[in-house]
């Protein structure tokens, strides 16, 4: 079994295709939609947690690529600008994924990149705007 968080970017022509349905039907994969949006230029963006057998996961990824969906692992997307972060901690209770936590010893804020679901809640509430999103 594997479970990975990925960002899918769809072009205009793919927005109306039942791509995620096929992941379930043909590759027996489970998915959890963490985020989905269609941008003004009608490009689709979806953040999924996909889990299933390793071989099915790989086949599913192949299928997505063959359709023209751009794929990237989620962990690259939200980054903390270490220069800007003041380690206040106001983001900590806002993060739904517990990706932002206070180190009880140093009282500094730790960002667990791998737990991040890219909901972007921290982006706009960070006072020094230290959380950045790079799509």
């Amino acid at each position, binding site marked *: 079994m594997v479970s990975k968080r990925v960002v899918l970017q769809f072009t205009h022509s793919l927005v109306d295709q039942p791509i995620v349905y096929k992941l379930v039907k043909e590759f027996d994969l489970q998915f959890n939609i963490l985020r989905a949006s269609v941008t003004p230029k009608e490009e689709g963006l979806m953040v999924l947690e996909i889990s299933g057998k390793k071989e099915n996961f790989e086949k599913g990824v192949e299928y997505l690529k063959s359709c023209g969906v751009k794929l990237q692992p989620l962990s690259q997307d939200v980054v903390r600008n270490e220069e800007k972060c*003041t*380690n*206040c*901690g*106001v*983001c*900590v*209770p*806002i993060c739904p994924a517990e990706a932002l936590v*206070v180190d009880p010893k*140093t*009282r*500094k804020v730790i960002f667990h990149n791998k737990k991040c679901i890219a909901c972007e809640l921290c982006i*706009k*509430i960070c*006072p*020094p*705007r230290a959380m950045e999103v790079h799509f």
Partner: protein
Amino acid sequence: MKTIKEINEKIKKGQVVVVTAEEVIDLVREKGVRKAAEEVDVVTTGTFGPMCSSGAYFNIGHSTPRIKIGGGTCKLNDVPCYTGLAAVDVFLGATAIPDDDPRNKVYPGEFKYGGGHVIQDLVSGKDVRLEATAYGTDCYPRKKLETLINIKDLNEAVLFNIRNCYQNYSVAVNLSNKPIYTYLGMLKPELGNANYCSAGQLSPLLKDPEYKTIGIGTKIFLGGGTGFIAWQGTQHNPQVPRKDNGIPQFGSGTLAVIGDLKQMKSRYLVGVSMAGYGVTLVVGIGVPIPVLNEQVLKNAAVQDKDIYTQIVDYSSDYPQRVASSLGEVSYEQLKSGKITIKNKEVPTGNLSSYSKALEISEELKSWIKKGDFILSEPVAPLPGKESGYSFKPLKERPVKP
């Protein structure tokens, strides 16, 4: 018993014993108050949080031909300054925002750039665009000025904050069913989070709760440089209820502080954006507490578990000025990451950086140890409880036509 003069002699001889307001806690636990008070000469405190009543004034120097900005307009990177002063003196407030900022028209507003950011940019050494207009006089004929300025070329650049360093502050929560955006951050509906803003056991006025050593004229660490306490801050209120240890259970004392902006560092003066609320400046302040006697040390050794504050609903009670508390919590509970309100476990967030506060107390400690920072004697005390000084609400009166 020691005097500030004696402590300063020790600083000059390199014999001074300085500990931070965190270290003193362990020291008292180990050695007891009496022994610790004999050994320690100075306790350094620190705080690093948003302080909205911050600002800076500048004298930009006279142009050729001369311009009288006083009574005209002046903007720094599009952020308006106060110009009701002499020809080339302007004051910039931390919360000022450009005229064309959309504010909360698209709610919650982003408030990307304002006075706090301009102050940080200047301190970082960045050029800032100044645009001024004037009505023109016989002696100051010029009506328009547009130029880049840099902090190093200004005659004076002075940070002058009329209310900083709150002695204690409420914890904000939201009892309503929609998210709200406050100066204490975003509050999720139905007690989704509880935000507080204090360095607790490191915070200057919590470690000298009755202002026995901190007074007007006290030299302090301000934004990475040195400054002074100029006055009690606005809304200073020594009258609030206190625990037996003398520590107020509500927001109470405040400080007005002043210092040379040119000495300061951008890591200790940070412009910030509070979503849906506005722009402000995060200010780093450290105040040295001279250990004049055992009581001073005992106060300075108070821990988070013995400092209490109130939980306040910011969806209705705070905006409507209803004085009510949903309960009292200690900073130890707040720092644990969750507190219980109305039988619900609520995660906490601090708007004030404890790690930065600690860094400031360490920095001030090293300055004193090296002999770079000599303590000053206060020239007047801050108004205490016995003064009768208090904080009153506005008495609104009808304006007759």
